[in-house]
């Protein structure tokens, strides 16, 4: 049994469909990243798992339970970080951590959490006066203080400075190492690429890609060889000889061969160019980044 099983989930607000037909799973010791632009349905998805949203159809199971019906029971085993809230504005980090530690039977030591998330210096500052990053770190600390089996983090690093992000990522990586299942949302690719084991990319409430990060990269990645040449190249002759299409997409001195960048092909190309006495420079091979994949996928979806 997977820790989280979602099949064909639809969520509507009135007549507006926020989530349309999502299916995915999450496992212990893995980080599932739900990635998508703002308004794509990420929070609705994660809040359905937390029991705050009622699916209009489809099923959601967390640790084998329906989160809508068993929210409080799941509250003992899951940790939740809502987007930007959940602590009384007058409460200090020390008080909030002591309170949340008091909810659970076998909590982590609040002092150690303060230490690892660098909250010691503000432990007596009321929540409303903390910076965005300090608030996020406290909310993260509260989500893990009860030693949960599953942790849900909604945009955990939004509004956090680079140093704070490192502390947050380290804690999340530690959760994975401890065998916790982590589900987090983000609209930032760097975040997804650094943390994710498995990726669910959504746009307009629909899944546009789902699978292991490496798999998605392999599936969509495009490779190419490019070079510049000031002397003209006979494209027809090139293609007849090498049996690969040669493009000149910008009409200038840049030439691109898409689809392959094997050493063999590079050797053939340079041999051909040498034979034709073509002076080329800036020869390079490249493969598309997750960013290119994400942008092209969300763009395709948007234009549908």
């Amino acid at each position: 049994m997977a820790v989280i099983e979602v099949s064909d989930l639809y969520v509507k607000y009135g007549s507006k469909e926020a989530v349309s037909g999502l299916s995915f799973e999450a496992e212990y010791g893995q980080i599932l990243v739900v990635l998508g632009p703002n308004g794509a349905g990420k929070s609705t998805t994660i809040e359905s798992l937390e029991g705050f949203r009622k699916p209009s159809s489809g099923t959601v199971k967390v640790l084998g339970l329906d989160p809508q019906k068993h929210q409080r029971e799941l509250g003992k085993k899951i940790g939740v970080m809502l987007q930007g809230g959940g602590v009384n504005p007058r409460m200090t980090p020390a008080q909030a951590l002591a309170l949340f530690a008091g909810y659970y039977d076998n909590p982590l030591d609040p002092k150690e959490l303060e230490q690892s998330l660098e909250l010691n210096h503000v432990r007596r500052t009321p929540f409303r006066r903390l910076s965005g990053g300090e608030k996020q770190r406290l909310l993260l600390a509260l989500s893990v203080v009860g030693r949960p089996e599953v942790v849900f983090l909604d945009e955990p690093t939004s509004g956090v400075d680079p140093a704070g992000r490192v502390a947050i990522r380290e804690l999340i990586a530690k959760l994975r190492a401890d065998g916790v299942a982590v589900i987090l949302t983000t609209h930032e690719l760097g975040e997804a690429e650094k943390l994710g084991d498995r990726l669910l990319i959504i746009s307009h409430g629909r899944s546009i890609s789902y699978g292991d990060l490496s798999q998605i990269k392999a599936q969509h990645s495009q490779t190419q060889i490019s070079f510049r040449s000031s002397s003209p190249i006979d494209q027809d002759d090139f293609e007849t000889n090498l049996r690969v299409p040669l493009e000149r997409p910008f009409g200038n001195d840049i030439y691109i061969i898409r689809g392959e960048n094997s050493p063999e092909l590079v050797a053939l190309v340079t041999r051909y160019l040498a034979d034709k006495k073509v002076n080329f420079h800036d020869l390079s091979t490249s493969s598309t980044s997750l960013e290119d994949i994400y942008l092209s996928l969300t763009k395709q979806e948007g234009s549908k």
Partner: protein
Amino acid sequence: MKAYVAQAKSEIRLSLTQGESLLVTILIPVMLLLGFSEVKVLPLPQGVHSRPEFLVPGTMALAVMATGMVSQGIATAVDRTYGVLKRLGVTPLGKTGFLYAKTTAILVVEIIQLAILFFLGLLLGWHPNGNYLAFVLGVILATVAFSGIGLFLAGTLRSEAMIGISNAFYLILLFLGGMIFPVSSLPTVLADIANILPAQATSQIFYHALGVGGRITTSAWVVLIVWAILAPAMAAKFFKWES
């Protein structure tokens, strides 16, 4: 149980460390009791021998109203606006545990308030001479009624609106509640309105239970019981855990 104890302690601490809240729950009732016992300007009901005899039960009614409707109401509205109530849903405490902890905090604060007013009254020469059973019953009914009103407002309004509206109700009910001067000295129209409000019913019950004796009117019990049923029912129907 562990979660409930942790939450109740936290709720009590928050209630007793909030300046604005202490102002309406303790400071204003105490000042009104001390002030109008000494400054003899306000009218008294017939047959009252000393001012504290009327003012102690009256300010006790004010105190109970302030805790349930204003202080805890505002605290709940703030918690709702800041996502605290939503977040509690996914802890071992849960929504039910939260309500138990909140009720505990309200009762503890009320015991403190009533004890302060009781002993101040004794210092002012007040001789309680009463029916404590009726008093305790009155406190419970009034707590349910005013907390119900507070929760109904907190569950539907944003915290800023809640602060304004609950404080306005506090002032209006202070004047229409027979707490520092008898409703009978108001114009007839206002007195008629006052008689169906929970504040007047509460102060009447407290006054007759602790003060001069005398029978508590059936209408006071009926009005307070109706509010104690209606207000929580409205709160339960309209309360939204998320803002």
